[in-house]
């Protein structure tokens, strides 16, 4: 029994690490820039298919795709920011939300045109093997994906905390005017930050594709998970996002183990509602910034 529990916990933690990076990009873009990226999970979906294409066509392992996704999606993010969001800063919030919603629908349907609605999986050499860690059988893919996710989280955390650019990005979110008078090019850093958020989404897509089946038109479910992580962890804080991811991961595996069918969704939404009610103040403050 105890062993069973430990296995569930290990599973939950590894999943939680991946949920953390799925939420991280959303959290940073929302917390630091005040942009509600409704299209976040659409970029996650693109990340999954990025790994899928590289794997199917060129035989590139998803571990490598994980790192390749970072620069590719960074560039994609900056392009999207330049095209849409600089314009979006000048329109009302509801207007911006509609535009992001449109972007989500656009990406999802372009995805469906290219890849159809078929459900895909990536079967790498290690997909069905497991390793024994301290007497526990752990699926190798989950271990790998979890470690990759943890590494990425650590990189983001260190970047925002220890580099001057990272601090400038945080400064920009705390006092935009003062940051500008200090000489910080807010437009450029915003582009960069959005690029980083999308890079994170792309990498999360790769990690998720290693474990779960995926298709273009089910991407919104990842928005639900990412959003739960963001609400639980608060906005724009890497460490809290990690903790929130772990909680969500553990919760999911526990529910799946002890409750019948998809009650996990019910638990998820009750939790979502509860956190929204409880964290009201903190969430309101952060969202008032900009769009």
């Amino acid at each position: 029994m105890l062993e069973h529990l430990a296995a569930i916990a290990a599973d939950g933690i590894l999943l939680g690490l991946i949920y953390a990076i799925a939420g991280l990009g959303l959290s940073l873009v929302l917390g630091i820039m005040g942009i509600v990226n409704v299209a976040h999970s659409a970029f996650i979906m693109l990340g999954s298919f990025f790994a899928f294409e590289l794997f199917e066509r060129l035989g590139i392992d998803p571990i490598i795709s994980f790192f390749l996704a970072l620069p590719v999606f960074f560039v994609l993010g900056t392009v999207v920011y330049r095209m849409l969001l600089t314009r979006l800063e000048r329109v009302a919030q509801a207007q911006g939300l509609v535009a992001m919603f449109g972007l989500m629908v656009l990406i999802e349907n372009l995805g469906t045109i290219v890849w159809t609605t078929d459900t895909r999986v990536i079967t790498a050499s290690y997909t069905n093997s497991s390793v024994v860690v301290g007497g526990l059988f752990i699926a190798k893919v989950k271990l790998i994906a979890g470690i990759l996710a943890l590494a990425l989280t650590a990189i983001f955390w260190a970047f925002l905390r220890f580099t001057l650019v990272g601090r400038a990005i945080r400064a920009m979110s705390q006092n935009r005017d003062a940051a500008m008078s200090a000489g910080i090019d807010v437009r450029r850093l915003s582009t960069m930050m959005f690029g980083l958020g999308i890079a994170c989404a792309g990498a999360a897509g790769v990690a998720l594709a290693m474990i779960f089946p995926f298709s273009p038109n089910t991407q919104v479910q990842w928005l639900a998970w990412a959003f739960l992580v963001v609400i639980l962890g608060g906005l724009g804080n890497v460490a809290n996002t990690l903790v929130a991811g772990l909680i969500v991961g553990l919760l999911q595996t526990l529910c799946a183990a002890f409750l019948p069918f998809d009650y996990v969704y019910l638990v998820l939404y009750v939790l979502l509602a509860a956190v929204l009610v409880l964290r009201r103040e903190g969430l309101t403050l952060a969202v008032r910034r900009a769009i």
Partner: protein
Amino acid sequence: MLSLFFLPSTRESASGRIYRRAPWLLALSVLALYGVLGRQLFLLSTLGTVFLYIALTQAWNILGGYGGYLNFGMVTFFGVGAYTSAVLFQYWEISPFLTAPFAGITSAALALLIGIPTLRIRGAYFALITLIITFAVQILVLDMPFTQGALGIYLQPLSLTPLGVERLFYYLFLACAALVTLLVYAIEHSNFGWALVAIREDEDAAEIIGIRTVEVKWIANCLAGFVAGVVGGLYAQRILYIEPTGTFAFDISLNVVLMAVIGGAGTWQGPLIGAPLVLLVADALRVTFTSEVNRAIFSVIVILIALFIPGGIMGLWTRWGRGRAEKAAAGGTQGARADEQSVQ
């Protein structure tokens, strides 16, 4: 202060009001007449769908258009309404015509349930939750025993000729569309509508002047839920077979947003323009394109409208009208302008 009393009254004369409303009333009469005279099943059915969407989009418009809180999951209310009526029929054989109001109430209750946590806080949380909750509700309906999962629920066909059925639903949905439009018109010209607009423009200021913003948003959301639920209940009787994926199709949510945004959110005319236009264009595109391409095209249109034409077609129309009025005023007397400034 005194000068306030000399401001031209904003209330139109009775004849002016009739003149303004005449085209709409005329259109309504023509449509009502067509219900009797028309014999083409396809046309009647298509128009019925247009009316259904007008009702849904108007319902969305209350909180989304006037209040600025966007619901990206309108289908949830619609689908829950449809299922309420279908389940009531399945177990007790009550006709959806009788249970439609109850379907509305169920959806309104769900709207309240969603609104309580999400509308108390500002910002986009409501929009995000409505978007992702569709997914959860769909899965629940798939898994619950009493909804029969993916099997779906069959309803009793009406004992009418096909033409009779189409006419019946033509009139039902026309009535729904007209009533909801009337409701939205009334809201636009009431304190409630004014409060919603205040919330959209500046929620802080709205609170300061004493608007109970949270309650206003809740009511608006419940109204939307009620309308969508009733329409959903009637829809169940129309298509006679309800199953989770079709009833909770994301397309319905998407269409509602498209119609409102393209026609012009926050005006009572917007959905009247948007719904037929989107369905017409979608039908025209369907001949040559798949539905994915179709949606991709529409999403680009929505992005462009959101970024460059706030207010959609109605926004363009009013700006064009104002431009003309200004041109006319510039040619007019200077005295009128001086008055205007002294009032400020």
